[in-house]
């Protein structure tokens, strides 16, 4: 759908119409934490797998909030300058559901986004300094 200008939207695109974007359902995982099992969590793992945060080691992902998902979350949070909690907090979920480029953030396990930089930088988002 290519619209020459913003007034050329077709009538079926009602401004107030609600629709579900592919990742909007992830919002329901707010508050979910390590050790829990939630139906559909495997789809979130697929999301992280698509963008390089979880290696594809098995044909199917489980619905368990396991260590692998927690590690992926922490890396994602580092890359997007979020608080590194390893939890599905609101701030992280709001970032996850945003539309984005389909290219992976991490290719072949390597990245030079924040998570690929030195630990002293990416854990806090700034350098530690001491006044002398």
């Amino acid at each position: 759908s290519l619209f020459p200008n913003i007034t050329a939207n077709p009538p079926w695109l009602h401004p107030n119409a609600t629709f579900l974007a592919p990742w909007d359902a992830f919002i329901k995982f707010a508050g979910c934490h390590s050790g829990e099992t939630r139906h559909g969590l495997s789809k979130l793992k697929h999301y992280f797998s698509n963008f390089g945060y979880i290696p594809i080691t098995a044909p199917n992902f489980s619905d368990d909030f396991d260590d692998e998902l927690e590690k992926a979350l922490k890396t994602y949070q580092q890359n997007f300058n979020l608080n590194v909690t390893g939890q599905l907090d609101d701030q992280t979920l709001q970032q996850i559901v945003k539309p984005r480029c389909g290219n992976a953030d991490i290719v072949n396990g390597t990245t030079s986004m924040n998570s690929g930089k030195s630990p002293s930088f990416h854990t806090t988002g700034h350098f530690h300094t001491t006044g002398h």
Partner: protein
Amino acid sequence: YSFFPGTPRWPANRRDLTYGFLPGNELTDEIKAVFSSAFQKWSAVTPLTFSQTDSLLTADIKIGFYSGDHGDGEPFDGVLGTLAHAFSPPSGRFHLDADENWIVSGDVMRSAVPSAVDLETVAVHEIGHLLGLGHSSVEDAIMYPTITSRTRKVELANDDIEGIQWLYGSNPNYNGSTTPTSTTEERETSGGEI
């Protein structure tokens, strides 16, 4: 900024690149001009030049709109979600999700449609991939991975410029700063001939 593993880039003997469009998309000149404008953002800061060719077969960069599974193992997912993807050099493949509600001109921020996506914003980002840049954690950078609907971001940030100039060097005419241009002025000048 970041690069793809192995830091692939266009070889030194290929600085004048061509781009072509999938004929089946039947894009208008106005739409093609959006891509021309996006390429200019990168040529302004590097020695690279980009020119349109009518032959998709011989084009260095091949641009096409596709729906769903389009054969490269990275299917599109309908309205929003993933918007587009592009391959590292020297592949030149640039795919956009045909199901998105692409806004070609006008102030996308004033669009009443929540899913409206500014075409040039996405084009500038994907061209960065085609030239060898990966994603950046700098939120203001063009190469930041998320591209929110109803927003427009087409000016390269310092992070983008440093990254691309590390790969290709600087344009001799680049004076070290980007020229801020208002949205209105850009729109008025981007609808002309390529």
